[in-house]
């Protein structure tokens, strides 16, 4: 599938059109934290023929292993979380009107008026909002809290129960050089990891961990890392890009990442101070192969790396993310070019990984 000359090591792979279709399917599918079944099924279908070993653990992580040619090869874990932020139904107020809570981090200001899908049968619904005609200027100054909002599915929604999940119902779109959809965080990582697994180099044992419950506290990664205990770990995710000018036209110094600047190498977040040996490994590879990359600004937030790097006696871990605008809203936007470069950098990173990286002490 990869258009790559095997004879020239410097040739770089290209993401096939099929992976965009897969991203579309994954973005449209529903998998809020704790309820990742649907996503896991798609991944199983995609990787069952290429993985040497495919298991689902107790918490729900899907672990796919591709063996190396040799016995004593490095064991490299690549983690991508399957779950997305969303909602949970917590009370039935009247026929078709439901109270709900947020699962994972969603800004309450981005809720009112959004179309959602609810429950096991993806029943269509909407998070209701007062029409502008009827609200007073004073009311419009107030941010609506989740507890004051309701999901309206229309009467007769018998299948919806308390404890059911809901998520945005945005359909995936191609917009010029960008893609737009819900749950791009982190179906982009899932789609990338599937492609990496299909094209795994035989020099390493590649352990692909499709993790659960990242959005509620890196819970899947915690147990996956303990169980796998790899020599190295890479985490691939989608990271916020708040890269447009500030509303008051002051200098934007807090963009985190910028679209169109390539994949983002993490330096520091709430849970991880990234291993400088691996930061340098990725940036050196980017320089050598002419793959664009950027450093994610040190700031709050985090990835599965937070749980993985302090597992057991410590695991050398790095995060490489695709920058995404409007993440954790109904519609996030990424650049296809950033994804391409992300895939290339991950491909060469897996191809060249070597225990010598750790020769120099951290």
């Amino acid at each position, binding site marked *: 599938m990869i258009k790559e000359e095997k004879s020239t090591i410097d040739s770089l792979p290209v993401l096939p059109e099929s992976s965009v279709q897969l991203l579309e399917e994954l973005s449209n599918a529903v998998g809020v934290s704790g309820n990742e079944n649907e996503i896991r099924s798609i991944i199983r279908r995609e990787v069952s023929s290429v993985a040497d070993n495919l298991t689902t653990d107790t918490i729900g992580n899907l672990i796919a292993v591709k063996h190396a040619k040799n016995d004593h090869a490095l064991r490299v874990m690549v983690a991508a979380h399957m779950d997305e932020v969303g909602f949970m139904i917590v009370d039935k107020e009247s026929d078709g009107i439901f109270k709900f809570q947020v699962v994972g981090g969603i800004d309450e200001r981005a809720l009112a008026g959004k179309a959602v899908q609810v429950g096991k049968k993806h029943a269509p619904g909407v998070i209701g909002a007062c029409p502008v005609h009827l609200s007073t200027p004073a009311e419009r100054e107030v941010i609506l809290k989740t507890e004051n909002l309701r999901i309206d599915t229309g009467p007769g929604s018998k299948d919806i129960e308390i404890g059911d999940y809901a998520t945005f119902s945005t359909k995936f779109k191609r917009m010029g050089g960008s893609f737009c959809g819900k749950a791009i965080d982190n179906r982009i990582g899932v789609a990338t990891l599937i492609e990496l697994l299909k094209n795994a180099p035989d020099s390493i044992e590649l352990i692909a961990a499709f993790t659960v419950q990242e959005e509620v506290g890196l819970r899947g990664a915690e147990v996956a890392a303990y169980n796998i205990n790899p020599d190295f770990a890479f985490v691939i995710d989608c990271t916020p890009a708040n890269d447009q000018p500030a509303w008051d036209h002051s200098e934007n*110094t807090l963009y985190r990442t910028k679209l169109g600047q390539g994949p983002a190498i993490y330096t520091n977040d709430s849970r991880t*101070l990234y291993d400088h040996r691996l*930061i340098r490994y990725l940036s050196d590879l980017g320089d050598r192969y002419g793959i664009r990359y950027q450093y994610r*600004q*040190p700031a709050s937030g985090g990835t599965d790396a937070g749980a993985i790097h302090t597992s*057991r006696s410590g695991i050398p871990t790095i995060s490489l993310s695709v920058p995404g605008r409007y993440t954790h809203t109904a519609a996030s936007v990424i650049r296809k070019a950033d994804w391409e470069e992300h895939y290339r950098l991950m491909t060469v990173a897996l191809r060249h990984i070597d225990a010598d990286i750790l020769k120099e*002490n*951290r």
Partner: protein
Amino acid sequence: MKNLLEKLTQTPGVSGYENEIREVIRKEIEPFADDIQIDVMGNLIARKGIKKSGGKRIMISSHMDEIGLMASHINDKGFVYVATIGGVNPLTCFGARVKFLNGTEGVVYAETKKMDKVPTVDQLFVDVGADSAETCPVKVGDEAVFVRSFLDMGNRVVSKAIDDRIGCLVAIETIKALKDSPNELFFVFSTQEEVGLRGAKTSAFSINPEMGIAIDVTIAADVPHCEPGNPALGKGPCIKVRDGSLIAHPKVIDAMKKAADRAGIEVQMEVLRHAGTDAGAIQLVRSGVPAGCLSIACRYVHSPSEMVDINDVNESVRLLVDLLSNPVDL
């Protein structure tokens, strides 16, 4: 000992980049340790002795890392915006000098028309003397430490990074002074304490100790109009009862008290409302480890001028040597 403390405090070692301070400590303890390891997280682990009848495997953890800054954005004019590494108070940053690990020095200031309110971290920047992004020798992700010289006041000493190089000093002096012990001792000079007790967590997993003790500073409550508390400078080592990360194991507290009694050392009991030490991470590793903390009262913690009393340091070494030389009953 003050010379060594000066060297320890003046060597940079911001969380995540502890290699330079680690080398200083390694050279200091090498002749006195039976085995030295450096792990994935950069922890320096020195073993002394082997477990004998009545002895235990004991982990003693002092963190090597110090708080600092990390470059987050270089603007067109060459100013370096920063994120904090560990609990840096922006109040202590106006006019402070910092040194990036590549050697670049700079002055910290903040976006403010008048110096009349506490800046947020987002408003802090470092002026490294560059006049454009292109000529700025710092890039996003580079770390810096505060620059502040060592001050010897006799009984009292002042420096940046007393937290927790003073703990490192106590551990080093203890390793040097220990003669014979039934215990197998693992002295950990840990990494990344200031960002969440991370080095202690992974090293404790490797060591799998039967008891854990952190050596760290605690907030001295003997300065004007401070938050009420017990620890005071010069009143002896503090035995921690609790902080935000730990309720010390009662038998570890007992063992520390008994050691103090045996050696005739005056101690203070310490209850801290917030914060944490490596002991908080050690206690939760694997199936749980009885853990406690020996603290040294320190004024102006997390400012570039932290102050301790040298007598507290000497007494802490004596307490620890006695504690670790004898069987511990848990």
